[in-house]
């Protein structure tokens, strides 16, 4: 899996550039490079549905972020407890890396998963659902309630975005209509 490791390193480099570059638009574009690398990683990991979804979501995410960053400045201030904050952040990240390393060692090795639950889907999905695509048979049949919850979260988020981004409040609009009358 050499190509997988190379792509992961490419994604890490893209993320570092996205965080460190001064220009906000360049940062967003570097994040896009990282996300499209993730799309290719999904293809290598034999997940074509995920790769398609990731491609669409990545492009939408780029459009949203560019809308937020276009013609905006990036003030860089080193005031405050700069050294203290940096040291605390790095200590926390090193502790996190060490604990993650300890946890990873207890996982099954890469490429040999425990498939206790999924083996049922692999064996019976063909007779029970009659769908050629196992992923869609899981999200739309075996675990359809999970997809319902996802749709609920999605619409709640859309309502939240519309509420936050509305230019005029409803009360002001009503007052304006009364004034016109």
């Amino acid at each position: 899996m050499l190509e997988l490791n190379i792509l992961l390193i490419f994604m890490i480099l893209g993320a570092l550039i996205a965080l460190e570059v001064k220009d906000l638009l360049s940062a967003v574009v570097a994040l896009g490079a990282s996300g499209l690398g993730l799309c290719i990683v999904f293809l290598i990991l034999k997940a074509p549905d995920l790769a398609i979804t990731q491609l669409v979501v990545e492009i939408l995410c780029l459009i949203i972020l560019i809308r937020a960053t276009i013609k905006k400045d990036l003030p860089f201030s080193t005031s405050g407890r700069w050294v203290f904050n940096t040291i605390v952040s790095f200590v926390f990240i090193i502790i996190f890396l060490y604990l993650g390393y300890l946890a990873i060692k207890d996982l099954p090795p890469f490429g040999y998963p425990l498939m206790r639950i999924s083996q049922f889907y692999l064996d019976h999905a063909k007779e029970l659902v009659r769908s050629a695509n196992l992923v869609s048979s899981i999200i739309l049949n075996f675990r359809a309630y999970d997809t319902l919850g996802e749709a609920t979260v999605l619409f709640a988020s859309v309502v939240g975005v519309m509420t936050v981004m509305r230019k005029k409040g409803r009360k002001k609009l009503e007052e304006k209509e009364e004034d016109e009358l």
Partner: protein
Amino acid sequence: MNNSYLPYFLCLVFFCVGLYGVLRKRNIIKIIIGLVICEYAANLFLVLVGYKMGGRSPLYSPDQSILDMVDPLPQALVLTSIVIGLATTALVVGIAIRIYEKYGTFDITKISKLKG
């Protein structure tokens, strides 16, 4: 470190890059970028756990020579998670745009000084 755990470890480093962005950056857009990176790393980790060496994608086809399939369950759940990630990103960016309109800056230290 054993070579078979290397993708997990690289994924962990990828997550830590995002964590660094969330913890250390002052600019709201940089914090959002760090959040998106964390989300990518979490999705990637779940798919990595379900990969089977030498397997093929979980699609039935009439004539198939490889019988092993990769684990379809993490893929189905990550498919849900990616879409929810887009929704949360849109919400956070919306709030950031409103903050910029109100305070005229993306710097979180200046925003906290103004106090509404």
